[in-house]
């Protein structure tokens, strides 16, 4: 099912790792079919950080689940490194909206769950898990249970779990939505650091415009339901980015442009 390389957006850049071609999603409901996503076409490049922003219910989480192979597409094709997605692919790590840490496992055991379930070698897994826990600043908390941690720490542990099997792709579904504003900014800095160190291809679903600009190479803006691509913006800010950059005129201009999409649609997503 491989399409020719010229079928893409035609941007001269690193090769596309994830290719989304004519992908649409329709839900079957009691009152008839509900169109959740209109046909979408875009690529995510190797090593890229791409954010998807859009109003609530525009189908951005659905898009993530389609790429993760957790939901079947209704139309179109998604392929990852040339392999068509038809079920959860091996090289993917997901961070969910809620931390979904298992209450009966400690932080380290929760991270190791990924290794156990995938039946990967335990020794090297443990080593990697400890390294990740160290990287996100959870050292000293390995043997704590999830309920003994703060919200930010819980989400950090779940990021470790998503990375421990060294996936090429990290999918994040509004991972910081449940955190307070200050913790969220801290987590954004942290995530930038992790991304720079681990060099993953990241797809971040968010409804925070500043968060998407701060972290991303490109920001994909979606329309209201049924979701379609309104625009894709390149973020030209240099890396590593600092929180101070959020006050720069470039940042403000881009945020204003993206926000314009939502105002023009008459919706205001917080």
């Amino acid at each position: 099912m491989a399409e020719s390389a010229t079928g893409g957006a035609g941007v001269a850049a690193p090769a596309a790792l994830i290719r989304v071609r004519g992908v649409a999603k329709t839900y079957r409901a009691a009152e008839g079919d509900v169109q959740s996503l209109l046909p979408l076409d875009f690529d995510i490049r190797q090593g890229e950080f791409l954010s998807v922003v859009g109003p609530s219910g525009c189908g951005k989480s659905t898009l993530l689940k389609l790429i993760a192979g957790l939901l079947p597409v209704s139309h179109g094709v998604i392929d990852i490194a040339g392999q068509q997605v038809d079920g959860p692919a091996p090289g993917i790590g997901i961070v969910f909206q809620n931390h979904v840490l298992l209450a009966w496992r400690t932080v380290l055991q929760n991270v190791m769950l990924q290794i156990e379930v995938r039946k990967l070698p335990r020794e090297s897994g443990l080593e990697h898990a400890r390294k990740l826990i160290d990287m996100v600043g959870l050292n000293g908390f390995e043997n704590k249970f999830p309920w003994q941690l703060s919200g930010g720490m819980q989400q950090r542990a779940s990021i470790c779990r998503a990375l421990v099997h060294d996936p090429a792709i990290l999918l994040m579904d509004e991972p910081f939505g449940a955190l307070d504003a200050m913790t969220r900014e801290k987590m954004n800095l942290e995530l930038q650091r992790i991304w720079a160190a681990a060099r993953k291809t990241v797809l971040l679903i968010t409804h925070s415009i500043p968060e998407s600009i701060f972290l991303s190479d490109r920001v994909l803006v979606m329309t209201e339901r049924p979701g379609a691509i309104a625009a894709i913006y390149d973020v030209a800010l240099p890396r590593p980015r600092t929180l101070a950059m959020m006050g720069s005129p470039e940042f403000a201009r881009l945020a204003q442009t993206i926000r314009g999409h939502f105002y023009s649609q008459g919706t205001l997503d917080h």
Partner: protein
Amino acid sequence: MPVPRPWPRRLVESEAARPLILIVVIFVLWDMVIRLFRIPPYLIPTPLSVAGMLVTEWPRLLREGLITGYATLGGFALSILLGIPIAMLIAYSRLVESYVYPLLVFSQSIPKIAIAPLFVVWFGFGIFPKVISAFLLGFFPVVVATVMGFKSMEPEMIDLARSMRASRWQMFMKFSLPQALPSIFSGLKVSATLAVVGAVVGEFVGSNSGIGYLLQIANGNFDLPLMFAALFVLSMMGVLLFGVVELAEKLMIPWHQSRRGDAVGLAV
């Protein structure tokens, strides 16, 4: 300077002592009511005469109590062995649920005392009809709680397991089962006390042994102190079984919310 608290205060603040204190208070009130309203002993015996009966009739109470205890344990064990697998089938299969669940609820509405004599007709006077009766009462709470436990898995957790490409077996062992355990245990606690009741119901309708039988004899002889003593033994049995289930819960799910105060809290 910390002033050592006087012992009555410490006694009241010790959690283990609280139910005992309440029992003492009830006993005193009981005795006072009998004296105050001059209630004749053939209506309500005095606490002292019941206590006396407990001491003098202890060998007999213990013997009959053990018989009821075996029937209770048998019924309780059956409730677990059959209840949990059936609940799992109901939780995992729409088809089984639609066939079995309504019938199960329907069967629970039948008064067990009404059908208990039937078991005597079928199975005779041995321990078997009592076990069946204990099982019939203890079974339903286990099923309901277990079904709820297995069904209460968050969709995100299922997505997490699927994203890890968990097999059905892994899904069950690593996610569903631990997740369902707290709920299963709350069902077991209800079931434990009901199994005692079930065993006694079995003994009421057709038996020549056990606490239920003793209760009937005492009732026939208007031997109220013996009756109350038998009831006391029965209650203790329920408490004991409940305690064992709680201990198992403490050991198996130390991570659960209800346990965070003690077991795991020490690790903080």
